[in-house]
């Protein structure tokens, strides 16, 4: 398992997440895309932790997982509330803050 392998896999997953976030209109899918982006970074950290034989990267990964979980909770709660009031989850229609 070389350096390049880890980097390419991580970058690919990150790009998939980014593109997914940009093109999908369903906020649930968008949240999943965000998770993909986060986990690409996790992958990178764990990979390098293994290559460099240190534990730092794994600890960071655990922290990121925790934060991501908390973030999703908040995000899902917001999505739920929006759906209850609007019965519509298309993010392009959620634009009351238009300047």
């Amino acid at each position, binding site marked *: 398992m070389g350096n390049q392998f880890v980097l390419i896999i991580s970058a690919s997953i990150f790009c998939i997440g980014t593109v997914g*976030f940009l*093109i999908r209109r369903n906020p649930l899918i*968008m949240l999943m895309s965000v998770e993909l982006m986060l986990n690409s970074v996790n992958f990178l950290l764990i990979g390098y932790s293994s290559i460099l034989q240190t534990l730092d990267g794994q600890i960071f990964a655990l922290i990121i997982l925790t934060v991501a979980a908390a973030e999703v909770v908040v995000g899902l709660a917001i999505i739920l509330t929006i759906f209850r009031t609007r019965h519509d989850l298309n*993010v392009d229609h*959620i*634009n009351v*803050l238009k*300047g």
Partner: protein
Amino acid sequence: MFSYAWLILALPLLGFIGLSWFGNKISKKQAGYAGCATVGLSFLVTLAVLSELLALEPEKRLGHVETLYQWVSSGSFKLDLAILIDPLSVFMFLIVTGVGFLIHVYSIGYMKGDPEYSRFFAYMNLFIFSMLLLVAAADFFFLIVGWALVGLASYLLIGFWKEKTSAVLAARKAFVMNVIGDVGMVIAALMIFQNFGSLSYMDVFSAAPDQFRSNDDTMVIITLLLLVGAFAKSAQIPLHTWLPDAMEGPTPVSALIHAATMVTAGVYLIARCHVLYELAPITMYLIAGIGALTAVFAGTMGMVQYDIKRVIAYSTMSQLGYMFLAVGIGVFSFGMFHLMTHAFFKALLFLSAGSVIHGLNGEQDIRKMGGLRFAMPLTHITFLVGAICLAGVPLTSGFFSKEAIIMSSFHAEMGNIVFWAMGVLTAGMTGFYIFRVYFYTFMGKSRNPEAHPHESPKIMAGPLLILAFFALVMGFSAHWVDQFLGPVFGVAAHHYEDSMLEAIVVLAGLGGILIAGIVYMTSKDKLEFAKQALAPIYDVLFNKYYIDEIYDFLIVKPVRAIGAFFEQKVEKEGIDYVVDQVGTQVRGISQGISFLQSGKIRTYALNMVVGMVAILLFVVFL
């Protein structure tokens, strides 16, 4: 030993607070009685203090400072909530609460028809409290507090009939004039603190003679600044214009404020600070000069007015001029003695005039009165008593006090023949103008057939009779007052005996009365002839020397013009323009860039991605 003396101040304050809070919950009668009771009780406490003070040796009567508690203690600056009990302050307490009480009782009758009865008594109590605080203060700080409160109370009372425009304007004028004086007082107090490191009378007066020599610049400036305050309160030239206008208030107010108490504050101030003034003989000369000038000047104006109260108001100014003359030439106890006799006979004159106005349902023009001696016999007598006292007919109180001052103005060290001549001239004019009013009002036949004058009720007659009694007999207390106040001023003033001069003064007063009699009691033609002959002088006097107009032209108009300039040019076209432009510009820029705020999450995300990629490229390739 005088700790209960606080009650003198506390009672009227209690009356004010009580009447302001519960005034509309109690009946008119209760409000009136409550208002009188507080002042009456205060008078009784004063009597108790007086008796205790008299029991002491004359030298031990000075400087009893009663401290309630220490209010401020900051570094070297200490301020106690304290009152000073000495013969001078007790003397003033007696006048303020004694005459004040009689005027309160009179007001019960006079204000009967007024819907805002309790408000009136609340203000009157506030006024009494402020005046007592002014005279009781043991330091310059509380002196100024009392000074300013007196100004406030007079503003409220002059403008009591607030639906009357002229009353509101008069109140405003009085307030502005008084504040000019307050400013002088505050600066003086600051200078005193700078020079002596204390505001307490005791510290300042004991340190002053050692620290400064006679006519030291600092001393002259301090005394002059205090004098600004004294002139403003006591309506001396050039700050006198508010007093005649202040007659817009109810008549008891005129009697209380513009005869017996407030206007005498200036005389009290100079007497209280006599240590400082004795160190500044230049200022003393100025006081004597202005006093004599005001006496003559106000006398001339009083001779041609037709409003009964205005004539008496001018006579107040004129008599205050005498008091200033007295303190100016250093005979302080004569000044205070005249202050007391004047308080009695002037309150009497005002209240009698009030009784006339009351009996004629609000008429104040003496040309529409006449023949009232039959309809109002009692008021006729009391007014006559007041008039002879004012004119200085021998053996009345006015005779003794005025005599002492005019005599000293010639014989005392600082006196001279000019002051004396002005005093005598004023005495003559005084006799003339007050008897002119008397003849117009009470003699001859009624000039207004529609008027149905009636005598005033008993509650108004009582105070009139008491005041008349004191106005007649108080002159005989001259020696006692001199002895009582002597320790305060170091030595008792010397009584000069000079039967020649005495006769001249008396003749001047009687001559004035006689001329008034000739002019106003005989044919109308003589009056018209005199008026025609003296028309130019008459016009100047009737228009009060055009001083109001001069002030209007010199001060009010320029200030208005500056105000208008600042409003139009600086405010509207300067400051407002800048503020408006800030708003307009921000709005314009915001409108230009508001498209960025599309409200679409995906656009924002794309922007972020593009930004991040740009930063990445920048970091990697540059």
